[in-house]
């Protein structure tokens, strides 16, 4: 039975679409996502993965078919057909990537905005921005009062008014130091309660480091002489690695610690233990003098 080639092409096209839709959702390449924002990043990755799989299979398919179908036969010294181009076809394949990247750019913009990346820029109404400035603590992209450009990711537009747990993060060769200004706790590990907004003020003591939690899909360089912010709401209890992702010297690979996302009770317990430990340490120090 001979199937007409346009039907074959159609079937191949449908199969291709199905495969890339399936693979885009089931690639299993990402670690667990521990916040709502991390899941939006995964969604955009799945979307890109779907398109990429489609294009990959299409191009590789064309190459493989060409290799088998359009081989020169032995002794055939003639040339192939003289086709120098096809303007409509070229316009189509210029337009398709253009449309894809346009969609992708808008989508990324949305996601980035949702993650709080454009916090003060979310509104173009400069007047209100300045008026509301006093309670808009999570200034990130641009400080409208003009002194400095703050960096990093702010609160998601939805949770702007929520009060966050502030932690000062200091990167130094080769460790992270977390200071909780509210309670005075200083720790080498980051403990945060689940479902509460956390704002990290990130700085570096010596060279450039980068604060990265793969499960939150968040990364921000810690640059000496500057302060950067990350704001996130972890919604999954667990232990996640905190990794330094900017080469910071010989033991860069060992510069790791752990993020503990805990229930409210566990977190309070931890704060209490540590406050107590530090106080008794201070008491001892005082007593010795």
């Amino acid at each position, binding site marked *: 039975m001979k199937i007409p080639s346009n039907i074959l092409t159609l079937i191949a096209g449908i199969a291709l679409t199905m495969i890339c839709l399936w693979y885009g959702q089931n690639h299993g390449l990402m670690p667990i996502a521990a916040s709502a924002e991390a899941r939006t990043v995964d969604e955009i990755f799945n979307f890109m993965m779907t398109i990429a799989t489609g294009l990959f299979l299409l191009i590789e398919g064309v190459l493989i078919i060409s290799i088998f179908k359009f081989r020169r036969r032995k002794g055939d010294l003639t040339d192939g057909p003289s086709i120098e181009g096809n303007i409509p076809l070229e316009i189509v394949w210029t337009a398709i990537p253009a449309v894809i*990247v346009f969609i992708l*750019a808008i989508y990324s913009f949305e996601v980035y905005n949702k993650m709080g990346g454009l916090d003060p820029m979310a509104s173009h109404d400069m007047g209100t921005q300045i008026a509301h400035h006093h309670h808009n603590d999570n200034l990130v992209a641009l400080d409208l009062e003009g002194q400095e450009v703050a960096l990093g990711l702010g609160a998601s537009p939805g949770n702007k008014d929520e009060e966050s747990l502030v932690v000062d993060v200091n990167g130094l060769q080769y460790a992270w130091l977390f200071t909780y200004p509210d309670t005075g706790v200083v720790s080498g590990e980051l403990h945060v309660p689940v479902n509460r907004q956390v704002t990290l003020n990130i700085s570096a003591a010596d060279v450039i480091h980068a604060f990265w939690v793969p499960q939150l899909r968040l990364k921000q360089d810690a640059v000496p002489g500057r302060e950067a912010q990350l704001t996130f709401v972890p919604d999954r209890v667990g232990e996640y690695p905190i990794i330094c992702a900017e080469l910071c010297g010989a033991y860069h*690979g060992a510069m790791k610690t752990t993020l503990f996302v805990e229930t409210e009770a566990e977190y309070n317990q931890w704060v209490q233990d540590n406050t107590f430990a530090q106080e008794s340490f201070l008491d001892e120090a005082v007593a010795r003098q």
Partner: protein
Amino acid sequence: MGGFLAEIVRTELATPDPDLVQPEMYNQMFTMHGTIMLFLWIIPAGAAFANYLIPLMIGAEDMAFPRLNAVAFWMIPVGGVLLISSFFVGAPQAGWTSYPPLSLMSGKWGEEIWIMSLLILGTSSILGALNFAITILKMRIPEMDLNSMPLFCWSMLATSALVLIGTPVLAAALILLSFDLIAGTSFFNPVGGGDPIVYQHMFWFYSHPAVYIMVLPFFGVISEVLPVHARKPIFGYRAIAYSSLAIAFLGLIVWAHHMFTSGTPGWLRMFFMATTMLIAVPTGIKIFSWCATIWGGKIELNSAMLFGIGFISSFLIGGLSGVMVAAVPFDIHVHDTYFIVAHFHYVLFGGSVFALFAGLYHWFSKMTGRMLNETWGRIHFALTFIGFNMTFLPMHQLGLLGMNRRIALYDPQFQSLNIVCTIGSYILAVSTLPLVINVLWSLIKGKKAGRNPWRALTLEWQTTSPPAIENFESEPVLWAGPYEYGIDSENEDEEDVEDMLAEVSAQS
């Protein structure tokens, strides 16, 4: 040398602990691996092809400024020896990007030697680019206008523009860094009120275009190799030619995408995301056009063509992951991870190096007058292709799962994938053997090549192989466009080309 360092790096990464080399040494290794591969392998290899082919392709006797050319050439070994000598004083270990303040704190003289050798290599690159641009613009034979020159010349024109605009900025950054290092100034040192982010901007203003400096010449090579062996005209000549220029232009305004997690405000990240994604459009045009070129042709599947097709399929992956990392929210996750390592190896190895080998198998006969052995060529291709994909494909996953780059010790959960990568890299190392054997053996015993073993139409195939001094014995004649295959198929077998040439020389 660069490859050897890479093998040590991979061997080290076979286990999660730093056991083969010390972490300091490991950092020196990957710094030098990056620098050597970029500045002493891919950039000079592109320049070498350009130097050799441009005059031949446009029918000139030599480059516009032969002395300048010699100076540029001899600066490369000087810079190279200097760079490698830094191992004696403790090689630089701040990565090939040398971000301050780290680069100011680890090994002063190694870093300074690195700066000096990069300045020398950069100067060489500027002089070369000047020469290429002027040669292409001014020395074409009179019959050849810009739109009938081979596409390789177009891509070199775009490359030269990038070199001329970008490299001086790198030089400035390096000289300022050098002042910080030696004279204790603080342009970039935050301790004295300097700003490390400024260095990043200046560095990437060159170093992102540098990626295109490394890959554009090889786009040109591919545009030459594919039509010859597919026996079909290149599909969309103007689209390919102008997309090179578009890539060069866009390449200049995307640098901050290397700094999405660094000191860049949100709106800047959005701007650079948009420009970076736009590059996908001209690049896509090229890939589609290459595919359309071989589609429906009569493909001679020799080593050059194998590497050519290998190039498209590998570079495609690099291009796709490139669009992904352009998306800021995603890049924030994968920045400085093995995903990036995989991405740029797919661009620079899958792109540049595959095309470089395609070019080598294609033009070896012209350069030496002898053919390379096909069997060895195919073995070389198979080993390279398998080794390459085995080394770099798993790295995508490693990066996504959370393995950061430039580390000598990593989480044991990543070990199995790392072992796959390491085995792949050994295959890649072995793959160089057939190449070396093939080149040496063919130089002495290879089948003699005529003027035009591939029955190609560009001008370099009109002269003897290897070309005579001053390239052409008699004035070359432009009797066909560079890619006019299949117009008059009966008359274009080898004898006819020879006949025509004989006729032409008789006339002149």
